[in-house]
């Protein structure tokens, strides 16, 4: 196949940065004359950019529900769930309270006045609205009315580190003690993390009905209007843009990401291929 200097653009969730990068490396070894460029975005932000007319060939997002809400059928026809993950609380060994924190007392540690913790922007990044859902579900699970409000008030403002990757950087730089991230991000950065109960960490389809009780208001595709989204098990998905000029190459890349080679890369990066 003569792929003379073909160019493909991939818009991907920031949390998929290393995974997509590794897949590109494998893909380009097999397709020497194809150039792939990746653009890391907050998934909600990225889907909206496509709605505003920005072009790309492949879209890999941190929430499969964004495809149905924003992209199908006008911009994407089919999309495929390829990985899952969970929300964790990442920290480093210098974080205040890191010797005491565990999966039961985490809320009390975070609410100590000297502790700084953060989440990403729920309007841009699924990790942001998923964190709010985790707090709501924790309030129910631990029977602590008002916990969501307490955590929200004590948390750094979400605009400080709008995307989960910004947040991971802040943690590594010692600017925050704790950050709500995907477990794969914490593993990739070698950060220790607290695993939350599966009833609240959005990892388990067996608790889909329980997760559905959590609801967050986010900006919709209509400016000035919000929509309510409900908690779901975390699922990452990929689709091909209807505007691509290189459908075959885009399909080859999606096959790589969702096939055996992609599975190995996802596992190396701490995600669960599915």
């Amino acid at each position: 196949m003569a792929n003379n200097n073909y160019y493909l653009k991939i818009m991907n969730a920031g949390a998929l940065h290393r995974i997509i990068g590794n897949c590109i490396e494998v893909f380009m070894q097999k397709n020497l004359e194809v150039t792939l460029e990746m653009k890391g975005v907050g998934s909600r932000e990225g889907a909206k950019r496509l709605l505003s007319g920005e072009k790309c060939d492949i879209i890999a997002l941190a929430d499969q529900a964004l495809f149905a809400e924003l992209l199908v059928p006008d911009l994407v026809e089919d999309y495929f769930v390829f990985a899952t993950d969970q929300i964790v609380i990442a920290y480093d060994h210098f974080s205040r309270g890191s010797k005491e924190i565990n999966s039961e007392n985490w809320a009390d540690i975070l609410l100590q006045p000297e502790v700084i913790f953060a989440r990403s922007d729920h309007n841009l990044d699924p990790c942001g609205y998923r964190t709010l859902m985790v707090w709501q579900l924790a309030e129910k699970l631990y029977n602590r009315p008002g916990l969501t409000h307490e955590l929200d008030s004590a948390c750094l403002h979400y605009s400080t580190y709008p995307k989960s990757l910004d947040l991971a950087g802040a943690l590594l730089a010692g600017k925050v003690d704790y950050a709500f991230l995907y477990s794969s991000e914490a593993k990739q950065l070698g950060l220790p993390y607290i695993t939350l109960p599966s009833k609240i960490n959005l990892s388990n389809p067996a608790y889909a009905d329980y997760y559905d009780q959590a609801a967050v208001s986010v900006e919709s595709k209509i400016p000035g209007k919000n929509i309510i989204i409900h908690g779901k098990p975390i699922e990452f998905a990929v689709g091909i843009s209807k505007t691509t000029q290189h459908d075959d190459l885009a399909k080859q890349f999606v096959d790589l990401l969702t096939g055996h080679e992609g599975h190995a890369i996802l596992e190396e990066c701490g995600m669960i291929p599915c």
Partner: protein
Amino acid sequence: MSHLQKITFSSDRLIEAQLLLLLQIKSSHGYELIQRLNDADFTIEEVDPATIYRHLRRMDKEELVKSHWETGPSGPGRRLYTVTKSGEELLSQWTINIKQQKEKLANFLKTYEQYHNS
């Protein structure tokens, strides 16, 4: 036939039999299988999604199940798993093994109760 010789009874390995049975009843994708496994109440411990997906990938490689992408009229495409002939044969072996284990466990309980009631 190599699958038939390797059955060892452990809770981790038993998931293989549980998944094969559920897939024999109905082809499913991983998300749905996790929900069905939870509803079936086969295990004392909570179903761990990572374990289920890992088993499904291994069973796919070993041709106990086969998979393909299923795209519906709405919603995302998901990998749909179906049990193979080898998988059905292995499930039969598992069933024999489980019946034997059930007898051994009953023997244990009987001996325990006899000793404590005597």
